């Protein structure tokens, strides 16, 4: 193995210069000859019959080329897909453009295609739609009641599925319990806001019958297969390109109506069609996140040992299943026991339809929710028994020697050392010192608190057999005849920095300068196969595929060099880009020379094909389970209820680090999103399903001024699941953060008898609690 110089180093992101100088190409930067623009008229009702659409005035408006309604889309396209993944799931037809009924605010009901964006937008105002409003159901628990308005009448109920995971003997655990603690908790609905909204350009080439779709997506290959199926085209006549993607956080891990409608429009008008989502559309039409209600009960022994956990999780799915809508709440169920050896579990998940935008994956997708429940429960147990929350955590931790550890929900945790991360974080925070000072602060009338969250998450998604869709990833490494190296990956990054980290790995393994390496992704015509980016999988799965390729390429280079040097491959050394017979470093060939020979193809070994390229698929044997400890220290203003995070400490363990700078970036962004959920963000609907927090004026996305400086550190516990030992870190910050902050806030108010406050901890809510 080459001496590692790049891997583990804080290499600056190679993609940043083009991003920060405006030289990157996003969907909206794509301009094609004779391109038309699409604008969508969206439902203003949460639930209504469409009784009439009159597009006649819009059709004759200046610049308008076509107006498309649901009938036409239904003729041209099958409903949008869901991966399902839950037994007995009720799946309503989800038309890209509904024909006779809308089920949530913002569903597209007509599309105008015009010569420019202004003409398209203006013509929307000329379309007349008659709706017959239907009763609306917004509250997920009311939606479960008999007699509730039905989102989809044909099912006779709003319950889309019930899913159960059980392990051990829960009844016995509750019989043996010294005390039982119960808490209802919520994970409010969040609205993802990547800096770049979604966008699509569709182009249909009539000659060969090829469709090309540029989309701001995390999953170009899944989109390609899905579009082919939906539109009845051959998969190899569809090309999807995800150009630069300005953030996704899970909300671009989908097959969206607009991708289908734009394709239908392009085929209809015979010209390229562009649609770029307005921020206000994004609030309604891009999937939302979280939205769960949980009823948690823990059976606890006198010493704080948690004997059993009973969870009922109610997932508000919104009106339809998008790609992973039903699966996300089941992740919460699977991860119910967190980092604890809770042997007895019953976790029931109920997925429920409401007249709201569909919920799907959002950074963490089910694991921030699970972590929040169990981490809050541990604090409540500590409060009940008068113990320190840290001691209760330690008493229940899965010990380091117990890995691989099988949880009551049937998962096998790969590796972990929870005490290590906890100890480091407590030292950094000065936990005991804070606790001592808290007493004095309280005497002075100040409300200060410290909150700990020890999390684990399910990452490196994942083994295909354990998923509703394929979980492998593919990669290709090609040493060009010039010795430059091209890396292709199917896990299409959108801000995570794999153009840097993958190049670091290739540079180390092949011994070529990092500047000679190009990492390509996101274009199905360039990267033949792939799955995409989600579930912190790029490094743990995509990186592993890359490692397999690198091994193959090195092997071929070694065999070829051995042949040229008339030596045996086993006698060869490949070190820092030079190949030589053991003990003869002075007579080396460079990898560049070997590559040139491979393409010149004169005098190759008889069984060897020309070229120097390898493609691999990595199918993971298990998920990875990163973990860590987050600690928040907060102060709440007794007069105003305003909460300030004074310090935030995070010790994360994502296995062996490839680029610590990228890891820090991921952790910081993740924590900001977790803080957002803990303190600020919330989708608010009125009882008619109108979104009251539908703009950035009303939806409080945290800004840089609203989050503290983070104090970060890491421990390193490698995973055996992939050759790098890396676990993935894209979601860790979000998963650890919201529980830490809420635990700190509750701690700050615990002397007032406060045991739980639901997120988000807005000042008015805290003030009411204080009063």
């Amino acid at each position: 193995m080459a001496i590692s110089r790049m891997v583990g180093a804080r290499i600056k992101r190679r993609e940043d210069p083009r991003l920060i100088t405006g030289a990157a190409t996003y969907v909206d930067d794509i301009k094609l000859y004779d391109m038309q623009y699409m604008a969508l008229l969206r439902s203003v009702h949460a639930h209504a019959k469409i009784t009439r659409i009159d597009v006649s005035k819009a059709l004759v408006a200046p610049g308008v080329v076509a107006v498309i309604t649901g009938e036409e889309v239904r003729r041209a396209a099958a409903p949008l897909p869901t991966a399902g993944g839950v037994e007995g799931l009720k799946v309503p037809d989800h038309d890209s453009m509904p024909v006779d009924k809308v089920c949530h605010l913002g569903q597209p009901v007509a599309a105008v295609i015009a010569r420019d964006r202004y003409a398209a937008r203006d013509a929307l105002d000329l379309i007349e739609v008659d709706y017959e409003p239907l009763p609306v159901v917004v509250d997920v628990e009311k939606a479960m009641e008999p007699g509730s308005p039905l989102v989809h009448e044909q099912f006779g109920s709003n319950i889309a599925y019930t899913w159960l995971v059980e392990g051990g003997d829960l009844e016995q655990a509750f019989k043996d319990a010294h005390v039982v603690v119960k808490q209802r908790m919520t994970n409010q609905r969040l609205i993802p806001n990547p800096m770049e909204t979604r966008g699509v350009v569709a182009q249909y080439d009539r000659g060969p019958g090829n469709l090309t779709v540029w989309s701001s997506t995390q999953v170009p290959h899944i989109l390609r297969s899905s579009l082919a199926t939906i539109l009845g085209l051959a998969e190899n006549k569809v090309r999807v390109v995800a150009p630069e993607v300005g953030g996704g956080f899970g909300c671009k891990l989908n097959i969206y109506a607009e991708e289908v409608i734009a394709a239908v429009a392009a085929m209809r008008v015979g010209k390229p069609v562009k649609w770029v989502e307005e921020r206000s559309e994004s609030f309604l039409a891009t999937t939302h996140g979280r939205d769960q209600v949980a009823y948690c009960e823990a059976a606890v022994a006198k010493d704080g040992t948690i004997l059993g956990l009973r969870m009922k999780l109610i997932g508000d799915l919104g009106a339809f299943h998008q790609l992973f809508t039903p699966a996300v709440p089941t992740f919460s169920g699977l991860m119910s026991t967190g980092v604890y050896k809770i042997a007895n579990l019953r976790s029931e998940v109920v997925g429920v339809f409401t007249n709201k935008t569909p919920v799907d994956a959002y950074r963490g997708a089910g694991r921030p929710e699970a972590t929040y429940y169990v981490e809050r429960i541990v604090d409540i147990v500590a409060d009940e028994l008068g113990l320190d929350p840290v001691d209760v955590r330690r008493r229940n931790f899965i010990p380091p020697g117990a890995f691989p550890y099988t949880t009551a929900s049937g998962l096998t945790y790969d590796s972990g050392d929870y005490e290590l991360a906890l100890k480091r974080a407590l030292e950094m925070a000065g936990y005991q010192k804070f606790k001592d000072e808290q007493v004095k602060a309280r005497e002075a009338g100040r409300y200060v608190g410290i909150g700990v969250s020890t999390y684990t998450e399910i990452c490196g998604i994942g083994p295909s057999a354990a998923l509703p869709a394929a979980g492998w990833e593919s990669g290709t490494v090609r040493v060009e005849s010039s010795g430059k190296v091209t890396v292709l990956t199917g896990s299409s990054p959108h801000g995570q920095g794999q153009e840097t980290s993958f190049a670091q790995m290739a540079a180390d393994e092949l011994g070529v300068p990092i500047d000679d390496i190009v990492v390509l992704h996101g274009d199905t015509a360039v990267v033949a196969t792939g799955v995409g980016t989600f579930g912190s999988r790029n490094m743990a799965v995509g990186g592993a595929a890359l490692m397999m390729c690198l091994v193959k390429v090195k092997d071929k280079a070694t065999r070829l060099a051995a042949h040229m040097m008339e030596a045996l491959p086993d006698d060869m050394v490949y070190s820092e880009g030079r190949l030589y017979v053991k003990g003869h470093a002075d007579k080396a060939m460079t990898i560049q020379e070997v590559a040139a020979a491979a393409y010149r193809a004169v005098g190759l070994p008889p069984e060897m094909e020309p070229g120097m390229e390898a493609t691999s698929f990595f199918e993971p044997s298990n998920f990875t389970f990163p973990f860590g400890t987050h600690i928040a220290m907060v102060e709440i203003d007794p007069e105003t209820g305003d909460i300030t995070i004074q310090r935030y400490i995070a010790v994360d363990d994502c296995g062996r680090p490839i680029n610590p700078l990228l890891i820090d970036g991921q952790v910081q962004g993740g924590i900001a999103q977790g803080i957002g959920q803990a303190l600020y963000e919330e989708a608010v609907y009125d009882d008619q399903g109108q979104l009251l927090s539908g703009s950035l004026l009303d939806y409080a996305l945290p800004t840089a001024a609203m989050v503290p400086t983070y104090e970060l550190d890491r421990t390193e516990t490698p995973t055996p699941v992939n050759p790098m030992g890396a676990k993935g870190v894209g979601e860790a910050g979000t998963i650890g953060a919201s529980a830490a902050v809420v635990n700190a806030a509750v701690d700050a108010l615990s002397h007032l008898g406060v045991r739980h406050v639901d997120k988000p901890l807005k000042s008015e809510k805290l003030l009411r609690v204080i009063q």
Partner: protein
Amino acid sequence: MPGAVLEEIVDDGTFLGSVKVAVGPITTSYKGRVQFTEKDEANHRIQLTAEGREGSGGTARGTMSSSMRATEDGQTEVSVDVHVDVTGRIVQIGRGLMQDVASDMFGQFVSCVKVRLESGEPAAEGAATLPVKPVAILPLVLRAIWSGIVRIVRRILRRPARK
């Protein structure tokens, strides 16, 4: 009422018309009906309900109750209570400004009524004939934004100093 056009008087208590409003970046117009649902002359109380629809399907539905009472110093106090349910883009985008725009429009309506009362013109007949001035959108928006800014500044100033 700024932006309002009376299109048809159906009967004594029912009117059809339209009103054009701008809230924040949204300009829209509602077509609909206004109806008196209560006329209590003895107690100086009226209530009316209004229902309007945008072309794109958005709706506004509301009731307005108004009563008058004599004050001790010989003046008349008019109180108005309005409740409106709105659907459509205006809720999503313009919600933060809606209250301000409504207050502003109502202020203009009041000045209009005041002018009429002071000129002694009989209101019932004047209403249909008086030229309707469309509501000036930009100043409205600016004023709404300004009052928003003023509110934020006041909030900051009122905040207790921290530590």
